[in-house]
């Protein structure tokens, strides 16, 4: 069967050193992609140019955009979307799903322990510095029992496929992970553009996320509340993820509020409506810990609600995620995840960690400084792909600067071997052709009281620049619709 000769792939260049998700080492299309490949092959590249433009203007007109903060002005951009979907078969997905649930549950137990007895530290499994030196450890949370015992209600676990064909966890995001609305938009856009291809695959839906989120949040309602009133709180419409906040509120059918819409009286939270104050029981918050309550955290915060934390402490309101989860998703804790999972669940990790060197350990610091060119070095507490260096992309001068930075504040950095993220054919607009690009996958896990949910799909993020390994959207990444197939 001719495959790579198909017109739209005629100029596709396959780098044999990379793990291509649709072509095997011999250049043959993998079985799971064969039907899709044939269907796409019926189109010409001109069709793609047209479809791609249509998809772009559809995103733009719907206002599915995010703000990029530049030096001079803020620009409105669409999140680049790729028309070629990624497929994950049901067996592979089962591993991923059980793996991310396992991590989320372990992290939840870890958080509960850190804010109560700290057994894991007392027994020497993880070092005390992990929390004593972490900016995200909130002493205010000590001894507090969140409703339903849940801290990380929503987790975004980033995973990659290495060139050994296995999945690895790159990082856990358990503060306010974003991106789920793009998963749903990508599906909608692909359905509009190429509805025919869906007839040939049994794909799990992704549109059930919001209803599951609301269901699971309602399982952790405050004690004594019958019909909880759930809301979403946003920093406001100038936030880069505002589209997502409004999307989630709309699809859950709940109010989208800002801090100034809420007030606290006698340790209960109310929102100001046209018919007077209305009680609020569950808050899905999309503002950071330190801005939640000016009385408790940053005094200058205008995004939060004075008195909110006191209401939380009394158990009168649920915050999802709980304050203080950030201590467990920084890159230093990440390296202890295998031990943490083993300690709380007595299980081996289902998904592997990427081996990580701690610059805080003298032995490992020495290795890192000698091998800057072979390692990815990351600050432990930065989000959004900032401050990362990739060894083989650095000049001599940059290597020396990097060494200096790490030496100055070793606790701030961890290092990992350069992982080879798998590649996926991606339509590149400038060149009007399909090319290999690196991808990762953000999964979304929701924990409720004795219940969990993993979105069957996820955000496949694409590094649009050739050879680039950083796939974050604030760094010019795109995304793909991701199909999880039903068991056939």
């Amino acid at each position, binding site marked *: 069967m001719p495959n790579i000769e198909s017109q739209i792939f005629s100029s596709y260049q396959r780098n044999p050193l990379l793990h291509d998700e649709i072509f095997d080492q011999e250049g043959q299309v993998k079985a799971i992609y064969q039907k899709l490949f044939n269907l796409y092959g019926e189109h010409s590249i001109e069709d793609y140019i047209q479809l791609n433009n249509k998809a772009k203007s559809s995103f733009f*007109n719907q206002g599915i955009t995010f703000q990029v903060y530049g030096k001079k002005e803020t620009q409105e951009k669409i999140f680049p979307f790729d028309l070629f979907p990624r497929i994950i078969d049901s067996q592979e997905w089962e591993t991923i799903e059980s793996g991310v649930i396992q991590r989320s549950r372990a992290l939840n137990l870890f958080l509960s322990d850190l804010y109560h007895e700290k057994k894991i530290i007392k027994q020497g499994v993880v070092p005390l510095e992990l929390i004593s030196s972490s900016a995200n450890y909130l002493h205010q949370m000590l001894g507090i029992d969140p409703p339903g015992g849940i801290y990380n209600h929503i987790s975004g676990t980033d995973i990659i496929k290495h060139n050994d064909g296995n999945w690895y966890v790159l990082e856990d995001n358990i503060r306010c992970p974003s991106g789920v609305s793009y998963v749903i938009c990508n599906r909608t856009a692909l359905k509009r553009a190429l509805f025919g291809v869906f007839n040939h695959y049994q794909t799990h839906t992704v549109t059930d996320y919001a209803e599951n989120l609301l269901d699971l949040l309602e399982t952790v309602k405050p004690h004594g509340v019958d019909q909880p009133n759930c809301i979403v709180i946003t920093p406001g419409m100038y936030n880069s993820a505002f*589209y997502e906040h409004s999307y989630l509120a709309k699809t859950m059918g709940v*109010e989208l509020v800002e801090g100034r819409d809420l007030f606290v009286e006698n340790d209960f939270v109310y929102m100001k409506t046209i018919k007077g104050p209305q009680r609020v029981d569950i808050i899905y918050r999309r503002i950071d810990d330190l801005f939640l309550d000016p009385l408790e955290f940053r005094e200058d915060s205008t995004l939060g609600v004075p008195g909110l934390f006191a209401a939380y402490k009394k158990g009168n309101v649920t915050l999802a995620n709980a304050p203080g989860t950030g201590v467990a998703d920084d890159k230093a804790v990440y390296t202890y995840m295998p031990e943490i999972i083993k300690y709380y669940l007595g299980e081996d990790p289902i998904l592997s960690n990427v081996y990580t060197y701690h610059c805080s350990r003298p032995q490992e610091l020495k290795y890192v400084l000698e091998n800057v060119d072979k390692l990815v070095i990351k600050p432990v507490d930065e989000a959004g792909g900032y401050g990362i260096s990739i060894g083989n992309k650095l000049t001599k001068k940059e290597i020396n600067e990097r060494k200096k930075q790490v030496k100055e504040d070793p606790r701030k950095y961890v290092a990992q071997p350069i992982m080879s993220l798998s590649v996926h054919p991606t339509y590149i607009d400038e060149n009007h052709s399909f090319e290999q690009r690196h991808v990762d996958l953000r999964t979304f896990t929701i924990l409720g009281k004795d219940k969990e949910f993993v979105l069957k799909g996820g955000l496949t993020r694409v590094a649009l620049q050739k050879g680039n390994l950083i796939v974050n959207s604030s760094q010019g990444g795109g995304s793909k619709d991701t199909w999880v197939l039903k068991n056939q």
Partner: protein
Amino acid sequence: MLSRVADNLFWMGRYIERSEHMARYLNVNYFSSLDAPNQISQSRQFVLKSIMFMAGEPESDAEQKLKEEEVLFRIGFDTKYPSSILNNVKNARENANSARDLISTELYEAINKFYHFVSSYSAEAFVKNGLHDFTTHVTEMTAILRGKIRGTLLHNEVYAIIMLGVNIERATQIIRIINAKYHDALKAQGSYGDKFSNSYEWSTLLKCAESYDMMRRFYKKTPTSISTLEFLILNPNCPRSVMNCLNQVYNNIKVLDPDYRYNRTSTAFLVGRVRAEFQYKYIEEIENDIQAFISDILDNLGEISKKMQREFFNY
């Protein structure tokens, strides 16, 4: 519904309506002056001053010469001028943004498209030769928005709030337009064969309110000052009349506080009062002292808006 969001939706309605009237006023006045029957009405300065008057900037110096491109730019695209069409549309969209979870995707998408149309239109092309194209698009797009508001939203509080904004703004703009054209009709009096009461300006006024054809159908006569004012102020069946707007405001405010309308401190009570007064007015008493009437009704509309602020939008 959150008070803040209600406030934003109210203003979304107002800004949509405002941009429409500005655009149509520009269009109708500019093009009807081109072949106006008398010299005064045909002069460029007359039209430009009328446009500035309607925008709330009456001339301070009769000798002053306005520049066409400057006036058009100011009304259409000047970001420093708060009531430019561009700023109105920007504000409408910004308000819609903050209530995005409450309105339909269809309505949001229409507003978003509207904004992108206006913000990407070349201001240069507009002042040179795009006046007709641009203003026609703006008025058409606002009609689409009204259709989406009525056709895709639940007719509940959200809808009532938006319609309150639309109708209060419409009444306000119609009165401003009447005021401007009344002023023009007075100015145009000097020319030969053009008396105040059957001035050409009354037809222009009706066209500015998209009411010319229906007015002709209703009276079957050439518009005069009295019949035009009666139609645009008191006729309850004319969708742009002040009376009609007040009726709509009354119906919508009832949705918001059904039990409260007999309480004399409520907005609904005030609306009912203003409306009742209009129901028993006749046009001659209005025309007797039109200036007093105009400032009176504008005050009342402002008072209704302020009361709504206190009663519903307090956050």
